[in-house]
Structure formats: structure tokens, C-alpha cells
């Protein structure tokens, strides 16, 4: 019993700083938004830092076909914002599917839509 308590104490002592699951905090284009024209890039800001090597952002058109985007990357000094480049897109509704791994290795995922009107 005492040994077990010591193991737990040792593990707590080496615990890393608290992080958490990465939730979508803000996106550009915004979730559920209608925009006039294709922005040069799509970015998602998460509530926690993410690992770009283990994170993906996919963009699909209304037919389900994937839009060619660049490799996801984070801005220098801000690992909470994950970005991909966008080609010029025709008007329509697009679905963004993201999977990220936060810096403490928790995985989260989500999807949302935005619409280009012109």
C-alpha cells in the first residue's frame, strides 16, 4: 500500500503542465458563414496548441470532391492556429473536416461548412 502511494506521488511529481483537448475556438472563414469570395487561406484557432505533423484539414465541395489544399502549418509563435492555403473556389457550400492532436497528445475532430456566394 505504501509502495503504491509512493508510485502515485512520484508520478504526480513528474506531471507536465496542464494542457487539454483542443477545441475549435474560431475559424476563418467562420463556421457556418457566407462569404463573397475565396480567401487565400483557411485557418482554425484552437483552444490549445496543436501538433501540425499529426493534424489535418480537408476541404470538400458539395459533390464530396476534395479541394486541393497545402500542408497544414502553424504560425511561428502560435501553435494554436492551424492554416492551409486555398485555391480559388467557385461559388458553393464547402465542408471542412479537421483532425488535430494537441500538444499533450489528445486527439479531437470536427467538421463545419461555409458558403461562397459569388
Amino acid at each position: 500500500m505504501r509502495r503504491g502511494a509512493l508510485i502515485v506521488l512520484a508520478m504526480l511529481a513528474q506531471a507536465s503542465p496542464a494542457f487539454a483537448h483542443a477545441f475549435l475556438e474560431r475559424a476563418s472563414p467562420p463556421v457556418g458563414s457566407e462569404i463573397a469570395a475565396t480567401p487565400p487561406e483557411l485557418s482554425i484557432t484552437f483552444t490549445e496548441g496543436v501538433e501540425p505533423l499529426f493534424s489535418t484539414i480537408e476541404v470538400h465541395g458539395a459533390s464530396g470532391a476534395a479541394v486541393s489544399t497545402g500542408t497544414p502549418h502553424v504560425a511561428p509563435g502560435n501553435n494554436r492556429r492551424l492554416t492551409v492555403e486555398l485555391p480559388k473556389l467557385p461559388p458553393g457550400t464547402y465542408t471542412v473536416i479537421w483532425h488535430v492532436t494537441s500538444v499533450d497528445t489528445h486527439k479531437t475532430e470536427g467538421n463545419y461548412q461555409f458558403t461562397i456566394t459569388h
Partner: protein
Amino acid sequence: MPRPTLLAALAGASLLPIQPVFAHGFAGPHMFVSTLIIDDPNVADEASLPTFSVLPQPNNGGPVSDLYAAEFEFDKRITENFGFAINGGYRWLTQPDTKTANGWENFSGTLKYKPYVNAEHEFMMSVGVVRNFARTGANGSNGGTLGNDDSSSTAPTFYFGKGFGDLPIGWARAFAITGELRYQIADTKLKVIGTDPDSGNPLFNNGTWNQWSGGLSLQYSIRYLQSQVKDFGLPEWVNRLTPLVEVAWSSPASRPNQSSTQYLIAPGIAYTAETYAVTVEALIPGNKQTGSHVGVIAQFHLYFDDLFPTSLGKPIVNWWN
């Protein structure tokens, strides 16, 4: 055997075995928040420390007794999808015209396995066994007054969670439902062993009765609405809120018994931060057998997988990896 007390049920005792085992879990993008009067379907590394509650007891028109409780729970994963939970707590029962009764609740333990998660359809199910250990808390007449059983029991339990992300109506996709159904089997069945010569009332052994119980929670995730459906530009603290309502029920399944069907309705709100959650709910009796006045329950919940992701927050089998 004392009159059933509803808060005993909240603590997982024999009457309304609503086990306050609280965890959060993802099924795809939908996160099920901690629930307070029913168990949730996830297996996790978490703790509820503490859960405070006060619930006026059924009074049959007389003075009202209030049952206060301070409880804890510790949840630990052994493997990724298999874990255990330990529950305990302390109770105070104020009684009109007599001394307040107080003492420890019986401890209970849960083994739970989550075999199936469907991320695409935001569905999760798990199965578990809850064991209530008699005579680990206050016993004798004091324990009986506080709702502790003299007989241990075992309850196979089914849990599920389902997000409404499949719906075509945008705002409705932020809803989710979780639930549980359990059958509690007493080690020693309640039996009539004679008749009180003075009152003529039946005398019982120290057993208890089998019973069905279960419950549902309906949750509305502002986080899901903002991140999956439409960003209304709400402040971040609002995005962390989840209004919810829980309904719990129990009904005796064997005779003789000293209980009746009970319902409890608990509307409230949860605030989920990075490493903790705070939830407050009203406790509204659903029938006279459950109570006649509104109570309240509040919980501070810790996510060990976020607080200690490289140690205590990992499954035990991964501690040495």
C-alpha cells in the same frame, strides 16, 4: 429497514441506485459532459471532488427532513477502454424534533468497459458492473436512517450516448442524449421473518430487494453549436456552457420491498474548462414518493487526463511506457 431516502439513491445505495459516476467522453466531435444523477457512458481518468447536495425528504405532510451529502468519486482507466470507479461520501440527515444523524455512505465500486464508439454517428456504448459494499459506511440503525443497506448488491449496467449531429436541422445538431439502465441484484433478499407483537407490523431481515433503475440526460452543447454549426461570435465562456436536464428513475423488482417507483428531474448547467468542470442542477421530485420540495446538487469535476497527461491521466497499462 428505514424509510427510503432519495439522496441515498443519488449516492448509489439501494433505493434509487443512481451512481454519481461522472466522466466526459467524445463520440466524434460531440463531447458528453459529466452528469450528476446518472452515470455517463465514458471510461476516463477523472474525479468528482466534491459533489454537494441537499434534498428535502418525503414528509407525508409533516415536518421536512433535509439530507445533505458531500461525496467523491475517482475514475481510473486500466486500459484505454476499461476502467474502474470508486464512490463514497458523508451524509447528514436533519430530523425534526430529534438529533441530526450523520455518517459515511457505503462505498461502491464500478468496473466499466467501452467496446464501441461510432465517431461518424456520434454514438458510444459501454457496459459495467456496479458493486455496493454493505457495512463499509455507517451501519446499524444510524446507517439505516442514512439510507445505507445492510446487504451488498451487484448491478449489471448498460450505458449509451448519442449526439444529434446526423440531423438536418443545424441548431438541433448540438443536442445529445445519454442514458443508463441497470438491474440491481441483492446478495440477501428482504424477507418477512415475523410480526411485531406490539404493533402487528411485519418484521424483516437485513436484506434488500432487487430493482430496476435508469435515467436519461438531454444536453445542449454551445461548444458544438459554435464549432460545428454556426459561430455566433459568443464570448468563450458562453461556448463552454452546456445546459442539460437529467431524469432518473427506479422501481422495485422483487417482493417484499420497502420502496416504490421514484422519479427525479434535474435541470441545470455545466461549465467545462480545460481541466475541470462545474455543474449545478436543481433536484425536482417527480412524485410524492420521491419528495415534496426542490433540492440542489453541485459538483466540481477534475479531468486527470488533462491535468496529468503523462502520468496519472494515462491508463495504468501505459504507466511504464
